[in-house]
């Protein structure tokens, strides 16, 4: 089952390696990971997506908690949340496909952020599902390169996790 976990950590060198080590040490793959400082620059927030059964995930959550540099761990699985990711897609734009590429971008409210002869770079933001969908539609046009940020997530409503 897919899990999406936010971890607030002290913004220090080595912390990422500790977190990653907890997963790799148990033969677990991190599907995506994004890290950046929070409002308080001394604290970073990681958003981690992984797959695994409940028992192992509970163990990982506890182990994450146990790291000295970890301040909070929130498992957003099954929680009401806003989840967004961004992708940059470099896609072929030939004479006969250019219009279709633009049309698809438009439908997904994606932006063309770089134009080269016979090639557009498109920026799209949305749920992972939406990013998935535009990628599928653009594939027949010839995707040359793709980069995704992995999702970031906040709980819905006024409640916050940062102090």
């Amino acid at each position, binding site marked *: 089952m897919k899990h999406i976990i936010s971890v607030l950590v*002290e913004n220090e*060198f080595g912390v990422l*390696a500790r977190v990653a080590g907890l997963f790799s*040490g148990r033969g677990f793959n991190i599907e995506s990971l994004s890290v950046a400082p929070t409002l308080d620059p001394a604290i970073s927030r990681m958003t981690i997506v992984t797959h695994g059964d409940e*028992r192992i995930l509970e*163990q990982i959550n506890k182990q994450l*908690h*146990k790291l000295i540099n970890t301040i909070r761990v929130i498992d957003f699985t099954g929680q009401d949340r806003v989840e967004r990711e961004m992708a940059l897609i470099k896609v072929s734009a030939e004479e006969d496909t250019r219009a279709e590429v633009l049309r698809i971008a438009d439908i997904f409210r994606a932006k063309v952020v770089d134009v080269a002869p016979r090639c557009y770079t498109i920026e799209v933001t949305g749920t992972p599902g939406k990013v998935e969908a535009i990628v599928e539609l653009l594939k027949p046009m010839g995707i040359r390169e793709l980069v995704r940020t992995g999702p970031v997530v906040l709980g819905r409503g006024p409640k916050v996790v940062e102090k």
Partner: protein
Amino acid sequence: MKMTGSKILLECLRLEGVETVFGFPGGTVINIYDDLVDSPIHHILTRHEQAAVHAADGYARATGKVGVVIATSGPGATNTVTGIATAYMDSVPLVVITGQVPTPLIGNDAFQEADIVGITRPITKHNYLVKDIQDLCRIIKEAFFIARTGRPGPVLIDFPKDIQVTSANFDYPETVSLPGYKPTYSGNLRQVEKAVKMILAAKHPVIYVGGGANTPDAARWLHQLAETLEIPLTTTLMGMGAFPKKHPLSLGMLGMHGTYYANMAVTEADLLVAVGARFDDRVTGSVPHFAPHAKIIHIDIDPTSIKKNVRVDLPIVGDLHDVLEKIVTQLAEFPEEMKRAREETASWRSRIAAWKESHPVRYTPSSLVIKPQFVIEKLRELAPDDAIITTEVGQHQMWTAQFFDFSRPRTFLTSGGLGTMGFGLPAALGAQVAFPERRVIDISGDGSFQMNSQELATLVQFQLPVKIVILNNNYLGMVRQWQQLFFQRRYSQTVLEVPIDFVKLAEAYGAVGFSVSRPDEVEETIRRAFDVPGPVIMEFKVEREENVVPMVPAGKALNEMVLSS
């Protein structure tokens, strides 16, 4: 006042109450060693960095204080790894200080550079690289705090050479600020109430005690809990000593080489109260068949231990002595129920007594050849109650656990979690440094002894009267036993072919050695060894193919013990 990094380190150690450090010098710690000359801190020079860590570990296990190690960068640092992992697995508080190449060279594959912070990340509770002299005092303060609080463990500080010679103002902080680390927990009262109800309702209760409870504080409350309700109690290898083995309620050890009655009691129990234990696979055997009829209460300081291996009906996270005290205090409010519970569990205790009677811990004695168990029995007779026993890993370790009657916390020092051959001798060394007046004995196998035998030199140099018992079977006996039972006696690489003259070996180092092969010489030899003021090796040539029984074959249920070989 301005001081160099290396002087600051030693001053911080002093303020932490460190009297003794164990270590081995080298290029990147040479400044620290120079400053040690003028420091009140006592340094024990082991002959290998692994041994320095085990010695600090033995010191810590015996005293409850933080053990401290100094090693140089590169090979010195990597030599500490097995020692650190050993301490980590058994939750022993250590602070290990390694030298590191100067900061501008880090990452350049400089001479004697190893990324020891990276290497030890999964085997330390926490670790640090000192990048700025301004952080040094805070890091040392935090390291000691983290090592000794909560579930204790080793902390490593990697200390680059250039920072050791940089000067800064010395200002040791009074407190630590670690927003993500809350090490002390008081047990939740509602959970405690539930536990009290469950304990009072149980008809077949068993208390199962691990290394977490092997402290004088926890042991005192444990004793009260067991006695007020007359609940039978079993310990793991690590819990040995938390409860006197000779106590009528004691079931001895459970698990792979546990007693028949402990394993039967756990299998038949309707309530298991786990205290500071972690349900290791050597304890549970086949997990689905472990305590199949029991509700499980799990009391532990470390939430990650709970529900890791087995289902738990009632978790209580907290300091053991706090939780146990609360349980005992609450129980006292129900005198009637306690009386009833004691009555209702009487038949359970008789059943256990019958198991004890039919299947005591035993072996077949011999008047021709020394049985290893016989040596342990003699040691038990002749050693004082407060003797500190260390072991290596193998059959001799299990026989020690089975046949020695431990009665006090912190008297049995053994590598339970990692199972490190070579642990016992340096651990005994460390314990003897902590308690020069007490009897310290390393019970060893011929194989394990050779993994750190160089420490004889340290024993002689520092006049540490450790008594080493080698149960010599000329085998890597524990592995041989498995090969006999599960690999049709194909003794692949477990026969230690070359006979070693352990007496000469002892003498080569300036120690004393005895070697005997007749049962009637055993007692006399032990007495003579105890009379020698310095370190002694006692080699007992024992029955070569004696097996450790009972034995639960790996993956089997606890009640599927092999009872004789």
